[in-house]
């Protein structure tokens, strides 16, 4: 309760300082609009339908990309994590592929897919597969031998062990991977929109606002919305992790 109050005080103080700063002579007028102006712009934008479409386009692309990445990476991670031979054989390829930043493929994706949603979805999938994949493999490495032996002692079959022992105990780690992936996917979606001159999306909105006469209030409003989406997504996933995977005390690093 006290923490929540202090948090509000912190935000209020920041907004106040920002308001004073942007009205002062320290920054050139118009570069950093005060929060009151940004707030007013934001309200106007949200009432205006077009901006909402942009937001929906970005969020939808992000959600599809994350869903596909989970569907690809979790089964793949389970296979790589539980069949050592396959993992050894693919290690070099994986190690060489994973550091390629997905944003490096933005120019290629623009040519291949144009400004439609396919480009950003494909790139976001590529980017978000890795954290989920690695966390799943890592989770299986951490699997408690005793749990498996217990299940084996009761005559449980291998696929059943996979479903009833390995998957649940891996779940907290996988969730951590998904949270990382969610953050990265959002970055990639917005970047692609920003760079590819997409037809719809938050990134495209910000690009237009900044290039067409430098409407910084619009840019900041878009940024605030992007931040809010990221914040809500992360808070939601954190809640899911706490609610359903609370037994996993060690779930890797903060993302």
């Amino acid at each position, binding site marked *: 309760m006290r923490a929540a109050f202090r948090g509000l005080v912190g935000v209020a103080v920041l907004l106040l300082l920002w308001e004073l700063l942007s009205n002062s002579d320290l920054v050139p007028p118009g570069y950093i609009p005060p929060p009151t102006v940004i707030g007013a712009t934001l309200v106007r934008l949200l009432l205006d339908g077009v901006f909402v479409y942009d937001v929906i386009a970005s969020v939808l692309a992000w959600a599809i990309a994350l869903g596909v990445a989970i569907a690809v990476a979790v089964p793949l991670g389970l296979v790589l994590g539980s069949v050592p031979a396959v993992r050894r054989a693919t290690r*070099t390829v994986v190690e060489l592929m994973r550091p390629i930043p997905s*944003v*490096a493929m933005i120019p290629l994706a623009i040519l291949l897919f144009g400004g439609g949603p396919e480009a950003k979805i494909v790139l976001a999938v590529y980017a978000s597969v890795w954290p989920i994949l690695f966390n799943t493999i890592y989770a299986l490495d951490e699997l408690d031998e005793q749990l498996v032996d217990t299940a084996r002692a009761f005559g449980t079959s291998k696929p059943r062990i996979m479903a009833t022992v390995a998957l649940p105990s891996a779940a907290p780690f996988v969730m951590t991977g998904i949270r990382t992936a969610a953050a990265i996917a959002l970055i990639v979606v917005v970047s692609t929109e920003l760079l590819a001159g997409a037809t719809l999306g938050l990134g495209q909105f910000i690009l237009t606002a900044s290039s067409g006469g430098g409407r910084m209030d619009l840019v900041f409003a878009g940024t605030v919305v992007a931040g809010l989406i990221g914040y809500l997504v992360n808070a939601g996933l954190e809640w899911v992790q706490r609610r359903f995977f609370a037994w996993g005390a060690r779930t890797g*690093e903060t993302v």
Partner: protein
Amino acid sequence: MRRLRSAASGWIVLLVLVVLWETATRIAGSLYFPPPSQIAETARQMWFSGPVSSLFLTDVVFEDLFASVARMLGGWAIAGVLGVALGVLLGRSATAMDYCGPIISFLRAIPPPTLVPVFLALFTLGTPMQLATIVFGTIWPILLNSVDGARSVDETKTETARAFRVSTVDWIFGVVLPAASPKIFAGLRISLSLSLVLMVISELVGSTEGIGYRLLYSQRQYDFPAMWASIVLLGVLGFLFNTGLSAIERRVLAWQPAHRQAALAAGTGA
């Protein structure tokens, strides 16, 4: 011996894949997907056909690669210093964290590329804007992991340090920082991959040099082998930085029991 064999099998699989890639691209004959042999040849001409005096490296290497790497590592280092300093401070003060927590959660959720236009307006095109983008984008994992790490100093260590009246400097550099170091390294590792991503983005948006600029330039010239060479180069860079940081990490965190070292293997990529 087993490790040798497993490494060998990995390289064999890689070789097979490259051969498959070569065959597939040759058969398909797509303009967008040149065969790897052509990419390699372009890379050689672009970067390794220079005079002996500069170790066969061409001017392009010095202009693009060094500029990019310097910006990336510079931004990452600034974020590292700021993030660790702020993180340790906030981690040792629950009150300060109460006040700043929500602001940090919000700021780190902002996809950094959306701020590129703001940084473009505030700073000029080029290095300052790019540094700002990289620092803003990479500071959060370092900051939050430092907070976590600084918090993790247990009661007994706190009391031991107080009972022996350890000086403030020794307390921070001798107790808090080492206790937080595994977490700090985790944050640094995430941020290093992010800094590569943001370096590329910032160069794609506004730059006249660098790997990202080269990438966009090749695309506009429809020079796809050159574009692919840049993509591969970025992958190699990412791999090298990751390996380098892991080596440093193993050395710095050598005091950790062996089983905890394994936990460091899991990483991220973007």
